[in-house]
């Protein structure tokens, strides 16, 4: 049985990873067709020459950095508060944000923004995308940070306070350093989710805030293209590195 399970596992891992590996191989193919004609970085050059791609990548990066910073801070503080004393309301809200199908989250936020814009003079743009991203990444940050807090001994904080530290100083000088790997891991995950999101982003983005996934989506709907193979490979390699780093930190 053991041997059979091994063969089975190899088959499933191949199913999970081969498609992207094949895509990566064909991204350095000289031909635009599905026939190998030699190594070429032509499509990568074409990728860096595409203004739409570069501009949207810039937008995605700016949105991801801003939403990661905000959601990591807010989420870490919330995780700490939840660890000190559970709150059914907040936990319920976070659960809801985790289980709601993306498309529903997207149209709900769109409805919120359209409703709010009747009273304030604003339009859809980078800021609405950032707000949406902070909203859906917080739950992930809380889950990761809270998991680490479960292994933290509250007596350490009490000791710090007995020795004269204020409540905040105890948090900042004792608890936070202990949480650092989880906070870093959470930030990387938040960054990954943000830079990757299409469904919610496409609904709340304005005309001047096209993100990279939106451009990729439009390209993919037109069909397969060698430039898109190069773009995909680049993103998968960069995000994959980030995810593996985050995993390592989470288990540290």
């Amino acid at each position, binding site marked *: 049985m053991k041997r059979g399970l091994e063969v089975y596992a190899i088959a499933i891992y191949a199913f999970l990873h081969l498609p992207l590996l094949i895509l990566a191989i*064909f991204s350095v193919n000289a031909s635009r067709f599905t026939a190998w004609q030699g190594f070429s970085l032509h499509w990568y050059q074409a990728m860096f020459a595409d203004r739409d791609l570069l501009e949207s990548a810039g937008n995605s990066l700016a949105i991801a950095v801003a939403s990661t910073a905000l959601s990591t801070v807010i989420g870490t503080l919330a995780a700490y508060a939840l660890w000190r*004393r559970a709150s059914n309301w*907040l936990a319920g809200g976070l659960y*809801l944000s985790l289980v709601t199908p993306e498309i*529903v989250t997207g*149209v709900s936020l769109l*409805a919120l923004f359209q409703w709010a814009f009747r009273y304030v003079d604003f339009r859809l743009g980078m800021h609405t995308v950032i707000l949406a991203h902070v909203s859906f990444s917080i739950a992930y940050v809380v889950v990761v940070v809270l998991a680490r807090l479960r292994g933290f001994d509250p007596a350490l904080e009490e000791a710090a306070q007995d020795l004269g530290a204020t409540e905040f100083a105890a948090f900042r000088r004792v608890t936070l350093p202990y949480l650092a790997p989880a906070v870093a891991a959470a930030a990387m995950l938040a960054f990954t989710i943000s830079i990757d999101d299409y469904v919610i982003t496409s609904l709340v983005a304005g005309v001047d805030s096209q993100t990279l996934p939106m451009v990729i989506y439009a390209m993919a709907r037109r069909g*397969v293209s060698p430039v898109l193979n190069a773009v995909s490979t680049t993103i998968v390699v960069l995000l994959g590195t980030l995810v593996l780093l985050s995993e390592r930190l989470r288990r540290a």
Partner: protein
Amino acid sequence: MTRLRTIFVTPAAVLMLVTIVVPAAIICVYSVLSRGAYGGVELPWTIENYGRLIDPLYGGIFVRSVGLAAAATVLCILLGFPLALFIAQSGARRNLYLSLVILPFWTSFLIRLYAWMFLLRDTGLINTALQSLGLIHQPLPLLYNTGAVLLGLVYGFLPFAVLPIYATLERLDKSLLEAAADLGARPLAVLTRVTLPLCAPGIGAAAILVFVPSLGTYITSDLLGGSKTILIGNLVQNQFTTARDWPFGAAISIVLMIVAVMLMFAVRRRGEELL
């Protein structure tokens, strides 16, 4: 003592209120309003939007969506359980094997769907390979059908099934398995009569983690199904964009949300805690 906690909890609580609770309330209200002349919403109140959900025109979409999501769920569990078992039994290397499942879980769903477009299209790798081997003369219609959507769902959500099942397997009390073996149970009997029942909570969590996003999926059907395979997700998206029938889109959203929340409670009751 609790002042710091209050300060810490406030930003998240306000954000959840503004971006989760208020939007849900707005959608709720919109779902019982009428469609406005220019695509907005207006009075009078009506429950007709919910009545339209059972219209035969949309009935087919719901049946297809639920059927596809259920099929994806069953396939993910059937394919995922043995893999979870393999990882749980692989000792020191389990972290590596686990990372190999988690990696695709976090790397761009969009790009992974695109990779399948690359493989399945008429001039894609699979058709090209089969043709050059002389096995087929016309390319097989692999892309833009329901089968391709199901493949995309299983491919995308398989990690969602493996992770919770693995988590319960890892916590499993090994002495129970040894006891069963000592009492004469064959390996297969240990698996089906001890391991599997003890894994029920993990399998339940896996089922919901696959079913809910599959039911609401939108890009999988759009990219791999073409225009023929319209699912609930596409219907919602369409009502809020091109069709501009927000009340109807809101009613469908509410139904999706209720299904998701009910399933979430079902999992929580079984003791699977995320938070």
